[in-house]
């Protein structure tokens, strides 16, 4: 049983934004919706670090907890997905999400929110795996094809890792012990209530 997670090794991330455009490419994400983004902390100062961030697919996901219409569900791979058929675009998940993951297309007047869109871990949505309907509403379903999210697969420096948590923590631990430094498993404490001790 896999417990899928993301891990951004900020000591590798160079803000090349490959993860961002890979996501756009793979899922045909429209302009203005940023399922993934790279944030640079302490920009221009010694010690600057960049972190690629998207939905972390939290344990006990706050978005799912606060959703008024209960449109979220967690897959057996621990990926947090939602149904756009059920979503009403209320914005509550954005308030609760520690990572700014939920995105809303602007529809109608005064920037009213449309159906929420977010990173699916390239695992589609509630429709049939790899169906046209799933593709249109959520983008690709690489997990169903036995592949990992494209953002992580295409990461230029292999900073962004995706996969089962044991595997990616092992990789991160090995890296930190080899190189002797690590700025932390960004977002893990908040998302999973645990971190990687090295």
């Amino acid at each position, binding site marked *: 049983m896999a417990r899928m997670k993301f891990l951004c090794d900020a000591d590798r991330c160079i803000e090349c934004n490959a993860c961002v455009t890979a996501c756009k490419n793979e899922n045909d994400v429209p302009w203005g919706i940023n399922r993934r983004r790279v944030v*640079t902390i302490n920009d221009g100062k*010694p010690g600057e670090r960049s972190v690629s961030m998207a939905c972390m697919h939290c344990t006990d996901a706050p978005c799912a907890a606060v959703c008024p219409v209960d449109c979220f569900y967690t897959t057996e791979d621990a990926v947090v997905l939602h149904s756009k058929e059920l979503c009403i675009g209320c914005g509550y998940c954005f308030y609760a999400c*520690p990572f700014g993951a939920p995105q809303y297309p602007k529809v109608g007047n005064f920037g009213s929110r449309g159906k929420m869109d977010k990173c699916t871990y390239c695992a589609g949505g509630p429709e049939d795996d790899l169906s046209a309907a799933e593709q249109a509403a959520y983008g690709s379903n690489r997990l169903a094809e036995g592949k990992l999210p494209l953002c992580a697969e295409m990461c230029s420096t292999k900073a962004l890792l995706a996969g089962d948590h044991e595997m990616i923590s092992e990789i991160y631990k090995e890296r930190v012990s080899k190189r002797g430094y690590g700025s932390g498993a960004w977002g893990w404490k908040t998302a999973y209530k645990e971190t990687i001790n090295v």
Partner: protein
Amino acid sequence: MVAFQRSWGLAAALAIALVIVVSGDALAQSGQPTSVNPTASSVKEGQLLDALKPPGSGPSAVTGRVSIPDTKSSVLIQPAGRDWRQIRQETLPFYGAIAILGMLAALVIFYLIRGRIAIDGGPSGRTILRFASADRFAHWLTASTFILLALSGLNLTFGRKLLLPLIGPEAFTALSQAGKFVHNYGSFAFALGVVLMILLWLKDNIPSGADLAWFSKGGGLIGSDHPPAGRFNGGQKVIFWVVVIGGVALSITGYSLMFPFVFTDIAGLQEANMLHGLIAVGMVAVILAHIYIGSVGMEGAFDAMGKGEVDLNWAKQHHALWVEKTEMKGKGAATPAE
């Protein structure tokens, strides 16, 4: 609960302050040394998280720079979402349920004890104009939209637990989606109603000495002695101010939620949402009492807003001073107050 308590302090001020989140800058050295080891001096997530404070008192989120124009995306991690989640999941439903169910229970008990308050000496058969059509328009505009807003709002808080299991997700989503539209568009009518009320009734709702007397006698609800009151008695003034202050507060918080990130940032939105919910359930409770006393609770009261004209005896019983004033002005002429 820190955030919750603080939110009351903010509620008093009714200011949705732009809470500026500060990044880990504080940890970095200032100036531009020419000799540095950027790897060794890298920021650590742990340190940044430890440095976070509750919103308003320091950096409450880890933020940085992004190149896209969506400034909210520069917030990398905002654990404050957890506090908000607690308010939404526990605090608001808890206090909301207490306020609303408590009020309902109180009203039932009151009704059982006091029964319907009758007009002393029965209806006179003569009526006096209490509210002109403009007054009634303002009232019913506000009232009807408030009910829609309250129901659609309560649905967001309680619907998932109460309604969804009954009607299923798709129907519930359809209902909630409709509720969202009603809530968004209805809010403008509600806000207009509140503004009209202020314009029409503000000057008669300025607290006066008579109100003290009115309150000291329990507003006539307890016992049978009706203290004299002007156009609006102390209780009605309370309702007025609750509606005006609450309505304005709901509008401010509501519109900042409806136009996300236009007026405030994520922390501000969380604040706004918290206040909006808490004020709303409070108001629902108060309005329930208002509805009770204006309908089943008191004989002749509904006519004031129903027909606009009230029985003279009812008027003398509850608004003796107003009746005197009105009758002095134009003998017998049932002119509304101004």
